[in-house]
């Protein structure tokens, strides 16, 4: 996998691609973590 970039465009294509993946990760992981935090607060909280 290429790690050395010659153009800003190449560099950004690479990093923005990862950023979009991380968005997906954030959307799943953060709510789950919130669920974990509030898991014992009481019955029936969606998040």
């Amino acid at each position, binding site marked *: 996998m290429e790690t050395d970039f010659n153009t800003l465009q190449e560099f950004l294509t690479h990093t923005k691609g990862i950023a979009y993946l991380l*968005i997906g990760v954030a959307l799943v992981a953060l709510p789950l973590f919130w669920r974990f935090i509030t898991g014992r607060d009481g019955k029936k909280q969606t998040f």
Partner: protein
Amino acid sequence: MGITRRQFFGWMGAAVGSQMAFTAQAKAAGTAHFTGYPGSMGVLHDISRCIGCRKCEAACNQVNHLPAPETPFDDRAVLEKIRRPHAAAFTVVNQYKPKGKPGPVFVKTQCNHCMEPACVSACFVKALTKSKTGAVVYDASLCVGCRYCMVACPFNIPAFQYHNPLTPEITKCTLCQPRIQKGLRPGCVEACPQEALTFGKREELIKIAKQRIGAYPERYEDHIYGENEMGGCNWLYISNTPFTGINMREDLGITPAPALTAGALAAVPVVVSLWVVFINGLRAISKRKEQIATEEKSQAVSAAVLSEQARFNNEIKQLKEKAKTEKEAAITREVKKALEAAARGPSENGAGQTPPSPKPSGTAHPEKQENN
């Protein structure tokens, strides 16, 4: 170079972390400076040499199999009007008559093949890519036809087949990428009788340009157009007249186009992550408020109940006391009566009857109190 779908999914795992943080050679955004593909090719257009013969236009037309023009290429009357590249011509030569110049000046216009192209940065399907040869290459098989590349291009180069209803394409100079890959020079360069166009490695071209400006300081403007404009171009220009006077904007700045939107795009993941946090937080707060409100309400209710009960008990107590005293009084009275009666004789019957207890008022029911 680009991200393939396999890579995309490949990164899904732990690779993401290592990619970002631990690759030693990878340049970090803060200090990164990119100098383009080493050895990429370009063309130096010496405007002072151009005579406006339109041989380059003819060659371009022939090389790219474009439709024949309305007027033949040796008809110079078209130069009377300023033209721009369009679907049927990837390059055009324009004639300008700048102030203080005895004769006209001719400028060839085509894709400048930017080092950091705005069109490539803008394309949302990667139909435009920057090739290692220096060419900005268009892939019609991906193009949706959104024309954002045309909006983004600071030089107004990409054109569109507006009259093709179903399969319109973006058209622009290809730097003759297929010819370059065969080791040939671009068609226009080959056709130029004046050698106003010089094809070569970009680094070499800059040296040649500097050499010419140094050798003929009186003839040339001391500026290589395209050396730094919008992060630099693979197509370079030197001129014997100020560029602004020949429709070449000198106010474009040196910021490469991708850098203009990089910041806004960088905000996207941050906004998403923090929105998730904030929205949850806000909801939690408003829920908690609701909860507290409910609790306070029920507390208030039970407090009210308690105080009412106390009042009731008190009343009962008072009534009881009253009843007691009344009873006692009655007893005493009855006893007295009985004694009197006994004294008079046992002739009457109702003597043993208890007095009626006072009926508690309707306030006694705690459940009903809530409805008040």
